[in-house]
Each structure stands twice: as structure tokens, then as C-alpha cells.
């Protein structure tokens, strides 16, 4: 797990982009209830690193982020695109430790979702 910023740095209801040590780009979101989600920052439809700048919300209760380019919705829990289930974002582990947000590759996340 890699620390990326202080928890308070993320505005409730928005995301930030983080650069992991291996060059991976992660989009980390804080919802209004202070829950955190992390997914790949790469929009698979347009091949641009923009997901952290999308709007979050819910669809039928499922937390989602919408691509800021062509507006496809992705589940924040599973990464799956709700408008095209053959496409998905990679999901990352995220936690708060000592007031710091930490992100890491975590294959268990999908199983627990």
C-alpha cells in the first residue's frame, strides 16, 4: 500500500489522481458519506487518463463514477461498466491510515465486493 495524500485533501463527492511507484495511475474517490474507492484512472473507451475527474453518484444504489468524456458509468465496487459489461476498470485497494489515504494493488477487493 502506498500513501498518496491526506484524507482531507479529497473533497467529499470528488476524486483525485495518484501516481503509483510503478507508474500506474489510480483514481481515488471520496463519497459524501466519507467512504473511499479506487479504480484505474484510464478511461478504457477513450484511452485517456481522466477517470479521477468524473462525477460520482449512484445508479440504483450502486456507487458509480461517470467518465468525463463520453459519460459511461462504472461501478466503483467492481469496476464494471454498467453501460457495457464487457468493459471494466481495474479496482484497487484503498484505506485510511493515520489520516492518510493509502492505495495498493489488491486482488481480494473484487472477491469481497
Amino acid at each position, binding site marked *: 500500500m502506498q500513501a498518496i495524500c491526506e484524507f482531507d485533501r479529497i473533497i467529499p463527492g470528488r476524486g483525485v489522481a495518484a501516481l503509483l511507484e510503478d507508474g500506474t495511475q489510480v483514481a481515488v474517490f471520496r463519497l459524501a*458519506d466519507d467512504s473511499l474507492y479506487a479504480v484505474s484512472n484510464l478511461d478504457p473507451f477513450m484511452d485517456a487518463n481522466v477517470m479521477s475527474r468524473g462525477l460520482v453518484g449512484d445508479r440504483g444504489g450502486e456507487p458509480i463514477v461517470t467518465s468525463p468524456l*463520453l459519460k459511461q458509468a462504472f461501478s466503483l465496487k467492481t469496476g464494471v461498466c454498467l453501460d457495457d459489461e464487457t468493459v471494466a476498470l481495474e479496482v484497487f485497494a484503498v484505506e485510511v491510515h493515520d489520516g492518510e489515504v493509502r492505495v495498493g494493488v489488491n486482488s481480494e477487493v473484487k472477491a469481497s465486493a
Partner: protein
Amino acid sequence: MSKLVVIGDGMVGRRFLEAVTQRDPSWEVTVLCEEPRPAYDRVRLSAFFDGVSAEELSLASDLPNVEVKLGEPAVSIARTSKVVYTDSGEYPYDKLVFATGSYAFVPPMEGADLEGVFVYRTIDDLEAIKAHSEGKRHGVVIGGGLLGLEAANALKLLGLETQIVEFAPWLMARQLDEAGGGILKQHIEKLGIGVDCATGGTKISAASGRLRMETNREGVAYDTDLIIFAAGVRPRDQLARECGIEVGERGGIITDLSCVTSDPDVYAIGEVAAMEGMCYGLVAPGYSMAEVVADRLAGGEATFPGADMSTKLKLLGVDVAQFGAMEGPLSTTYLDPAHGTYAKLILSDDAQTLLGGMLVGDAEPYPLLRASVGGKVPGKLADLLGGGEIEGALPDGAQVCSCNAVTKGDIMGAIHEQGCKDVGELKACTKAGTSCGSCVPMLKQLLKEGGVEVSNAVCEHFTQSRAELFDIVKVTGITTFSELIARYGTGIGCDLCKPTVASILASLSNGHILEGEQASLQDTNDHFLANMQRNGTYSVVPRIPGGEITPDKLIVIGEVAKEFDLYTKITGGQRIDMFGARVEDLPKIWRKLVDAGFESGHAYGKALRTVKSCVGTDWCRYGVQDSVKMAIDLELRYRGLRSPHKLKSAVSGCARECAEARGKDFGIIATEHGWNLYVGGNGGFTPRHADLLLSDVDSETLVRTIDRFLMFYISTADRLQRTSKWVEGLEGGIDYLREVIVDDKLGICGELDALMEKHVENYADEWKGVIDDPEKLQRFVSFVNAPEAPDPKIEFEEVRGQKFPAGSTERSHSTPVALGTPVRK
């Protein structure tokens, strides 16, 4: 090629030309037109005094193989040699069509030829009336029928005190009974127009520069400045008479049901035709005749289908409608003098079949009633008469749109088989509602009957429409999304409702759009105050009000673009767009722009974009007003104003319209006396010319009216609804809009003014608000943990001396991408 000569270029003649060239373009057509201008919309003639120009009333269009001879009336016809003569030429024909229309009837009266006495028929007549009315005070209209009321409206628009004199015992005696005529009189007198019925003029004399008309009533005479005869029309059959074609006893060229006259090579259509002895004074039967003859000339066998003489009009702001029979075995009436409404239905003797009726003051049930004539009475009489809720039970064969002959069956077919989901789709699919529009309410009802739910709900989180949310926010004073969704919605929101609410909060002047919780609601473009492009970089557009810019500022833009390596392009809105800015560079770019005096151009927002202008009186030898200054003033007044969709505007300094103002949400065109204001224009996917809202107003009135227009739109439009669709969707259209924001019919103008005042007072540049605020500035980073590290995926290539996103030019050649369609890798 066979030769076709048409005498007359009026509305019916023009419809005929369109029909005949479409069906059989092999005819070589010559049109002999007495007036100096081609066909125009005579039905809307009085709009001429409401600022609509002769050009705008024109119905002329270029048609193949059609030559129109303007100002060249036919003077005689040699039927044996088949030639029509004018003063300057001769035109042989194989077939001849009379479309000469009518002339205004002037009863034989002493003094009817005096200066200051007019008829009401052509644009020339109107121009003469307008010229004569300058500086005058009072006018008399002789005739209280359709035409008379139109003429009275015209005099009122010219600012004259107006008196109607009608020989019949009540107004519109052809369409209404005594009670209906009485209610109509009540409405018209309320407008300050005098009405004397059962009164006839007997003599006109001139005295000390004015006119005096004596009447058949003891001691009643009128001193006035001008008199208009609008007491009916007569068919113009003189030419036919002279060449021996049979005419009716009471005038009109006799034809059979195929419009053929007593000469088999000569047809007559429109008001001049006496079809089986009957003349029709309405345009719709004339159009039917035009279609019949076009069909016959193409080898068809069409006959006149019978005329629907139903009429629905708004006369001097009063709804009047008449349909079907005027009299019958049974009738039932409803009279409400308090609200000025009257309704009468004519029924069969068993009271089961509707035969006809009339409505005054409220014509809402008209489409349903008209469509039901000859069928079952479509509801409870009390509901039909008293304006109650009526559940439609029309038979499939009932005609819903009489202009285009569309039945209920056609409409239901379009809904069920072609999947039409709204009025616009029905119009495109069936043509219903595309001419006079009176059946549009009926179309809405049929959509409902067809099970089409029209939901305005913003999204799954709010069942309310945008307009309802706007009202809620305004009334409750709620300033946060979280409170709004907790109290009035469900869930946590989405990319539809969040920006909508953000826009509403911004329209109601709630501070910087990135302040506090509002920051979390903004779409990415608003969040970064720039437009995201396909590779995740942004474009930057500083405001250049009215398109006017100093050389120094141009240099600053050039220097900024050079320093940050940005692609530059001139936009359609007279400003400069800089593309390819990385998110972390935006604050640095704007620091330089703000220091040089630039402000945000809001190219990223659903907000005012630009107010284009031509150079106006400053430089142009044709300009009549200072269009540049007006454009700058308007752009500065409305900059930053958030709205349901983007807003565009333009100001042209003269009627040449170089700024293309009529393609804008609000467009202004200078006149010699002030400004004309047009609203609801659009370019884009569905181009639409803006409608004239006001004419010849001063700058102050202009700005006040635009204030109200914008705030009324912002208060009531749907999400992403441009002003064009909004204006089209208003019941009552542009007239209703004028009643609300000019006449203050709803009493809301004070509030609209206050909302705009608040916007103007609270405006602050959004970019200045960011670069002076460290907390907001820290959002503009590539990575939260590596603020200055550039995203390595963003790459450019050079084309035509500038940079483009890598692969973009290739992409445009190899795989075309439909806009808005997701592309799978």
C-alpha cells in the same frame, strides 16, 4: 413543353405553383402578378404593424420552370388563340389558371374616395395606412367581421384610438350568434376599442384636415383621421367576365368540383372560384383547390373534397372559434360573463351527434370538438362547455389536423407503429400540427392516450423536473445539494442531477461555483473551468466581449499560447480558443491572462458564451446603430449567467444582419428607430430562425426585456433545453412569451428583474476567484502525490505547424467515430 399561365400570385396561387412543380415539373409556367412583390402571407397581414417586415411575410421561393412577372397584370385574354395579354407582353397558354383572389368591397358611399379612406387587403394598403397614420390620433374601421377586427388591431398597433362600426347587430355575425358576439364585444371594449353595432356609415366628408362620417343612426357621427373599409371582399372575376367565361350571379368564376370553368382549358382556384356557385373566403379550401388542379394537370382525377369552414383565431388577444354547423335541431350554451367565455354546441335531435358549435374567450376544447363534428359528442356536455377535464374518445377517422388532413388513426399509427414519442416526432412523421398549430394540444392528448408517458424527471434521484427543482430551491432557499436530495430526492445523485442543481444554485447567485459543496457537483469542465478534450487536456477561451480586442491583448494570447505550446483556433463566436493545456498548467496560463485583463469566457459552462457583433455605425457605411457597443454591454451584463443550456447571442447593426443574430438564442438587429429583438434561434442540428419579440425599442427596453426573457427561460426550461425548443414548447408560443415578459400577464416581471439584478451585482470572474485562492488552486494538479509530474500518456504530433493529440489525425481517416458513441478499444 406545354405552357401554363397563372394569373395572380397570392397564397393559393403560390400553393398551386409548389404543388404543380412538384407533381409535374414539365410545365413551363408563367405567373402574372399585379402586385410589385411575390406572394405573401395575407392571413398574417396585421403582423406587419407588429414589426414583421414585408420580407418576412413573403411566401416566395425559387421554383423550377416558373417565371414570375411582378407588377405585370393580365389585361385581356383571347380564348380562341389561347393568349393572355398584358400591357407589355403576350403569353400563349395550353392551360390557364385564374388565381386572382378578391378585392376589398367598398359600399357605395359619398366620400369613399376621399384622402384618408383606405381598404385593408395588400401590403401596399398597409404601407399607405401606416404613412397616413403618422401623427394622427383616431381611426374608424367599417366592418366588425374577421377582417374588420384585424384592421382594428392594426390601428391599435399604430397607436390610434380605434372605433369599429358594424352594420350587423353583433360582431362576427357570420361565425357567432348574438351571445357570442356580445362576449367578444365585451373583450374588445376592454382593450379600449369602441364598438358600435347595427350602425352603417352614410356619408364621408372632409373638414379642416379631418374626416367626418355620418351614420344611419340619428345624431351619431364620427370625426376621425382615417377610415378603413373592411366590410368584406368580392371575387376578382372582371377579366373572366370580359372574355366570356361563365361567372356566378353574385360573382365568382363558376367551376365544377375539379375547378374547371366553362372553358375546359381554364381553371379557377381560391377566392375567385365559385365552385358549384359557392365562393370560399378562407385559405384552406383554396389550398385544396390548388392541389386538385395540380393533380389534374399531372393527369390525375382529384375532385374538391369539401371545405372545412372551421376557424380558430386569436383576435386582439381573444380566442374565437367556430366549427361545423351554425344551427341545428338542438343546441346547448354556456355563458360566463365574469370570465368572458361563451360556448355553444349544436347537436342532432337525439343529442348524440355533434354538428357544430362556437367558442369565445377560451378555445381550448376546439381541436377535440372540431375533430368530433359529425361523430359522437366527445364527453359530458358540462365538461365540454365549462372547460372541464375531457378524456378523449375520438373515432379513428376523425380529422385531427385539418390543414394537412391527418386523422386520429394516422396519429395513433405513428405512435404505435413508428414509435413517435413526442409532439416533435409526430410533426415530422405525419405533418400534423405543422401549419396553423391549433391541433398541437390535441397531439399531446393523443400521445397520452397512446400510452406515451412524457416524463420531465431529471433522473432516477429526482422525480421533479428541472423547473420544479428551480422553484424548490428558490422558495426554500436551500443552498446545498445534500440538503436538497435528502429532502426532495433519493440516493446520492449522479452526473445528471448534480450539474443541474449546480446550475440552479449558480443561476440564483450562490457565490463561486467551486466554493464548498458546490465544487463536488460540477461537471469536469466546470470543475476545471476549461473544456476537456479527447486526450484529457483542456482548451482555454478567454472572454473577448463583442469580439473586440486590442492588439496588446492579441499579443498576450499569442505569447501565452507560445509559452504553453497550445494549438490556437478562431472560434465561431469571435474569440480565440487555445487547445492542449495540461490540467496542472491551467492556473499558470490564467495567471497571465488575468494579469493582462482577461476574464473567463465560460466556454466550459452552460452559460452565456458570446455576443457576436458586426462593426455597426463605427465603421460600416450601412450601419444604423452602434452594434459593437450594444454587444459588449450585453456580454458584460450576462457573463457568468448559468442557464439550462448554453446561451449565444449576436447584435447586427442593420438589416443586412452580418452578425447572424437570428440564429442565436437572443439576437438583436438595429433599425433606424432602435432595435428589433429576436428570440429562440438556433444553429446546430436543428437550425431555427429566432422569432421577433419586440421591434423598434430603445436600448433600455431592449435590455430589460432580455433580462426577463433569460430569467423566465432559466426559471422554467428543462435540463439541456435550448431556448429554441423552450419557445416552441410554450403553449401560446411567442405571443404568450410577449404577454408574460412585456405585458406582465403573470405578474412575475418584478421578480425576474430582481433575479437578474442580483446576478449582475454578484458577478465575479471565476478564474480570478481560483488563482487568488490556494485551497482551490491545489485541485489543479496532474497527480495528488506528484503535482507537477506530467501525464506521460498525453502526447502530441505536429500538423500544419501546430500540435494535435497524437493519433488524432490518423484516427479521423481510419475509423470514423459518430459523436457521442462509445468507442471500444
